[in-house]
């Protein structure tokens, strides 16, 4: 951390600060038992006990491959899914216990941006109606104030006001995502959960949307939970990054530490798996190609769930589940043999 850093506001740095959102022991199991008469019920452990804190003003990136539970986590935070176990505490209030009108009011503070801009907008509503919907739902604006607010929001996300009477299908993916962002911003939320907001977009458009989100975060003092399937997408926008694998967080630290010194072998695998857009290094660069497939979350491996693919796994990893511990300041890892000081070296603790 450079000194310059301390001068600029750095919300997440101080652990003394109250987190805006705190997740404790969160679990979501889906019943996937087939047939009525099976004695043993089968569960898909989409999220299997995670703890996270999100501090005001920061961006927490959540990264992982398919089946790791990152999207389920996002849906749990905005209460689109009910948690099986655990607590989601937002400004001191446990969201999992809220319902009815109280929950409806709370939703104003926590908004979501969806992955697919093609399916997340009702095809039969015009842009104006789409952006006005949250305002009408909570009756925050009416009449002239409503249309003023809608046009203001359109301006904020970089959509020309002339688009107001058009339908979503007339827009490209990037423009639709802007509409989605305007909707999410309409109620002045404190927390924005972005569920892979750029993965469905063209490369040249992705950075437009990322830049926009970053600008809006500063402008409106937003706290972001940014979910992505790969590290490149969260690289720019995140202050801290949580890496998930099979329903658990395996590593959580600042962006800098994660990229410079990943401690979990899975994180290292994820990092080096990203193709480097430079043909010069293609034969020389170090790379850890993780073997095998991602196991099914219905039947996760025993012990450390990563042991089936880990290059360093031994008997201990097969039997004991590693604890998620702060091995270094601000650096949480769940691994028996965390990597230390560069790639591929094992340090036994």
């Amino acid at each position, binding site marked *: 951390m450079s000194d310059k850093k301390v001068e600029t506001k750095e919300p997440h740095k101080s652990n003394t600060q109250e987190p805006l959102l705190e997740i404790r022991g969160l679990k979501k199991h889906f019943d996937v038992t087939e047939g009525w008469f099976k004695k043993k019920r089968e569960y898909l452990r989409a999220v299997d006990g995670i703890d996270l804190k999100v501090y005001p003003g920061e961006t927490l990136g959540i990264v992982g*491959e*398919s089946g790791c539970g990152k999207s389920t986590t996002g849906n749990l935070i905005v209460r689109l899914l009910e948690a099986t176990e655990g607590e989601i505490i937002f400004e001191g209030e446990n969201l999992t216990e809220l319902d009815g009108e109280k929950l409806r009011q709370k939703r104003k503070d926590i908004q979501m941006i969806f992955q697919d801009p093609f399916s997340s907008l009702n095809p039969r509503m015009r842009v104006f109606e789409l952006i006005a919907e949250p305002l009408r739902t909570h009756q925050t604006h009416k009449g002239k104030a409503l249309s003023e607010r809608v046009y203001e929001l359109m301006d904020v996300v970089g959509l020309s006001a002339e688009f107001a009477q058009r339908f979503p299908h007339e827009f*490209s*993916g*990037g*423009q639709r995502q802007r509409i989605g962002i305007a909707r999410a911003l309409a109620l002045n939320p404190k927390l924005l959960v972005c569920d892979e907001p750029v993965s469905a977009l*063209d*490369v*040249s*458009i*992705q*950075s*437009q949307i*990322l*830049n926009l989100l*970053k600008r809006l975060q500063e402008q409106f003092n937003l706290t972001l939970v940014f979910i992505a*399937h*790969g*590290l*490149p*997408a969260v*690289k*720019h926008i995140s202050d801290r990054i949580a890496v998930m694998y099979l329903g658990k967080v395996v590593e959580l630290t600042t*962006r*800098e530490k994660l*990229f*410079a010194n990943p401690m979990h072998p899975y994180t290292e*695998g*994820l*990092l*080096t*798996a*990203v*193709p*480097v*857009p*430079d*043909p*010069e290094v*293609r034969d020389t660069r170090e*790379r850890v*190609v*993780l*073997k095998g*497939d*991602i196991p099914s979350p219905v039947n996760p491996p025993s012990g450390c769930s990563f042991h089936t*693919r880990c290059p360093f796994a031994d008997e201990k990893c097969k039997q004991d589940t590693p604890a998620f511990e702060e091995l270094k300041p601000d650096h949480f890892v769940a691994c028996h043999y965390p990597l230390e000081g560069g790639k591929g070296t094992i340090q036994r603790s």
Partner: protein
Amino acid sequence: MKDENQLLNVSNLQTHFFTENGTVPSVDGVSFQVNKGELVAIVGESGSGKSVTSLSIMGLVEDPGKIVGGDIMFEDKNLATYTNKQMRKIRGNDIAMIFQEPLTSLNPVFTIGNQLREAILQHQNVDKATAKKMSIDMLTQVGIPRADKVYNSFPHSLSGGMRQRVMIAMSLSCNPKLLIADEPTTALDVTIQAQILELMKDLVKKMDTAIILITHDLGVVAELVDRVIVMYAGQVVEQSDVFTLFKDPKHPYTKGLLDSTPKIQDLNEELISIKGTVPTPANMPEGCRFHPRCPHAMDHCISHEPQLETMENGREVRCWLFDEEVMEHERQKSGNEGTPQK
């Protein structure tokens, strides 16, 4: 002009889609060559026409679409004039294709082995037992563990990565001269993508199959290919060998694409984007198709369409910035302001 080494020569290919709302020129005068055993990437975003180009080569353009002009010379055969029946002999035998979504390209009601064996039996003159042996052999070669077990399983029981391996095995089973891979790793997770890329690299070394890789991911391109063709709005805008292209991109679009591709090792790079959106065929800009998004657009670009010009080392660029005459004119114009052009 004909090169001994040349496998495929696409010249001035035009594939149009005739929809209710008018004609959509998805591929508008595309020309390129592929040599034997060469790895070529066609790069572009959605709507660039890269996929339609590959489907045209395979003769798989679906109904409202039609090849309306140009030649596709494969060895000495012009595929553009081939009927569906003639194409069936070429497909799978000489040219094979792998698709983005491996689940939909495998028939769910037959076992992996059954489909692989059928593919071999159809194109090669061998008996069933040999075909089975060849299939299991192929599966082992693409890195599938317990290949004999997988041989008897159904597509849905395999993971996405495994299915893509099966597709690769199937497409390579008849030793095609050309393999077209349409976004083969896009639907896969990053760590699985890395596995498939490794596999493709290995296979390329072993076989002398030429590959056309269709992708939007410049990272994948840099890992794998020899030569790159960049497409934008139905046209080729730049063509170069991979090293030169990444070191010194000429076309502003290529440059923008490279800049907006995230580089994982560089933590503090700036996020650069190309402004605006990809034009739809209904509102294709006049002049250079990239000019509304181009940071270097000049007056000349708005009204004049550039041609694909050959530069040093066989490199090709479609941009007025590299036309001496136009640039001289522009310089003069900015020299004495106010002088109207023409």
